[in-house]
């Protein structure tokens, strides 16, 4: 095999999920009537904003070789906190700030701070007390959701303050600002992971924690920061969720965790840690969203989405193994 074909093959393997996305979009456009419209594509991007943001945090923690199952509940708690503070109906307290735009940074800060706090707790328990991240964050997944139920009393808040709601309404190039926030997050955190020493160190920790420690990288500190980031990003996802739905219900976002997982795995992030990149994760999110939209358009019962997502995850894992074998053969 010539070096050039090898390079091309490797490039395709590394960006397989984008290829899949293009193929799927092309197939759907050809086969499903009314699929090929700008509005549909904008809708795919919009529908993937919350899941996308949440997947970033999850992916970062998985790349460092750990796990954060709590992101879904954290997002729900942040959404509930923002909604209780700034919704005017239901259990909303309807706080007003003047000038009105001040509510945007305040609500964002509240959402991210809640997430960061829970992330910090997860991180300290996992890193300092050396407990299994799977168990610790599973516990957080449960108790944080419990907290959502407790503070809401099972009821919901509606009518989010228009100043915050603005982000879901206002559009730039046909795409709502909330979706642009997700895209911006992918850009920023992709740059962080690939271009800064901090991101590089996280990838190294995921690859070989001992080697990173021996090289003088502050492994524990970096891991805790990764958990804090995952929490804060989940908080941002929660903020987006409350903006999109203009409020919050006690069971808001249930099931998002598994979709986030699917997106991360489909996006090429290895659950063993150390492997994966955020742009791929975004492609994974878009792929899920594209399939959901197709199911809706075809009028299939929405119950099938779960089956298809599950099969997709299976396919992704199979592809990953296949890819690794090919890689070895190429090497």
């Amino acid at each position: 095999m010539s070096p050039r074909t090898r390079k091309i093959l490797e490039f395709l393997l590394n960006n397989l999920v984008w290829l899949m996305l293009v193929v799927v979009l092309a197939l759907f456009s050809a086969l499903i009537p009314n699929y090929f419209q700008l509005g549909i594509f904008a809708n795919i991007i919009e529908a993937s904003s919350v899941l996308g943001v949440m997947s970033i945090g999850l992916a970062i923690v998985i790349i460092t070789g750990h796990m954060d199952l709590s992101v879904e509940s954290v997002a729900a708690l942040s959404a509930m906190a923002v909604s209780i503070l700034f919704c005017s109906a239901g259990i909303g307290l309807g706080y007003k700030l003047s000038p009105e735009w001040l509510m945007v940074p305040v609500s964002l800060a509240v959402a991210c701070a809640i997430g960061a706090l829970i992330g910090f707790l997860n991180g300290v328990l996992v890193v300092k007390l050396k407990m299994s991240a799977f168990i610790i964050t599973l516990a957080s997944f449960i108790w944080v959701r419990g907290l959502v139920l407790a503070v809401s009393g099972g009821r919901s808040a509606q009518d989010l303050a228009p100043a915050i709601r603005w982000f879901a309404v206002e559009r730039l190039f046909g795409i709502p600002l909330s979706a642009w926030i997700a895209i911006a997050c992918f850009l920023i955190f992709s740059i962080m992971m690939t271009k800064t020493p901090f991101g590089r160190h996280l990838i190294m920790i995921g690859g070989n924690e001992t080697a990173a420690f021996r090289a003088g990288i502050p492994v524990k500190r970096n891991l805790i920061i990764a958990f804090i980031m995952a929490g804060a990003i989940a908080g941002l996802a929660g903020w987006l969720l409350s903006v999109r739905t203009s409020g919050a219900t006690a069971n808001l976002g249930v099931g998002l965790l598994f979709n986030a997982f699917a997106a991360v795995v489909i996006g090429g992030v290895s659950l063993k840690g150390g492997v994966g990149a955020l742009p791929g994760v975004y492609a994974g999110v878009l792929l899920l969203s594209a399939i959901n939209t197709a199911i809706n358009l075809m009028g299939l019962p929405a119950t099938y989405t779960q089956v298809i997502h599950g099969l997709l995850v299976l396919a992704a894992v199979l592809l990953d193994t296949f890819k690794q074998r090919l890689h070895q053969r190429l090497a």
Partner: protein
Amino acid sequence: MSEKLLVLDNIRMSFGAIEALKGISFSIGKGEVVALLGDNGAGKSTLVKIISGGQKATSGRMIFEGQEYQANTPAEAKAAGIETVYQDLSLCTNVDVVGNFFMGREITRKIAGIPFLDERAMEEITGKALANAGTRIPSLRGKVEHLSGGQRQAIELNRFVHWGGKLILLDEPFAALGVEQTRRGLEMIRHVANQGIGVVIITHIMQQAFQVADRIVVIRQGVVAGDVECSKTNADAVIGMITGQTLAGAGAASN
């Protein structure tokens, strides 16, 4: 003998009821190559970990460049100028060659106060360092997982030669190397020692020890069983010290 670089004074290490090191004392001079020999489980690797900040000694003192020294983390040991090449390789195979070469001390450029990796500068330095050492690696941007065991070990060795420092600890550095690469590795060790850097090398191969070391320190069952200059002993005497057949025989012990 040259100036003392590192002095170990009665280092003890216990794991629960097991005493791995029972009072180790010896010293390393500047520009001196000390071969640390001993049977499996004699405590050599434990000793290396204590010096390099991977583990904390139960008791004892270390004096590095005339000052009390104690490393709580590998980062502290590195800051003091002590580099370590471990038996099990310390490479992140999921990262490329350049990334591994600069692991933990990346060159950065600040843009708006945020440090960004300066990949081009790092690639240039890595390429030069590897070329100088005669190591041939197909692509500096290829992930280390695609490299052979020998190439990986060569990267580690070149890394320590490049970063230098004041003292280098090598824990069986040639385990995966071929004949030619080993020869070059031994040359590298002499080369860094000539620059005044102290070197401690753990090895099982007697021939290597005699080839490269100035002095041989034998550890047996957690104590120093022999501390002799290479020129004043021979392989048989050293083997005797390792297995415990002779104790003195080959020159003065540490005390």
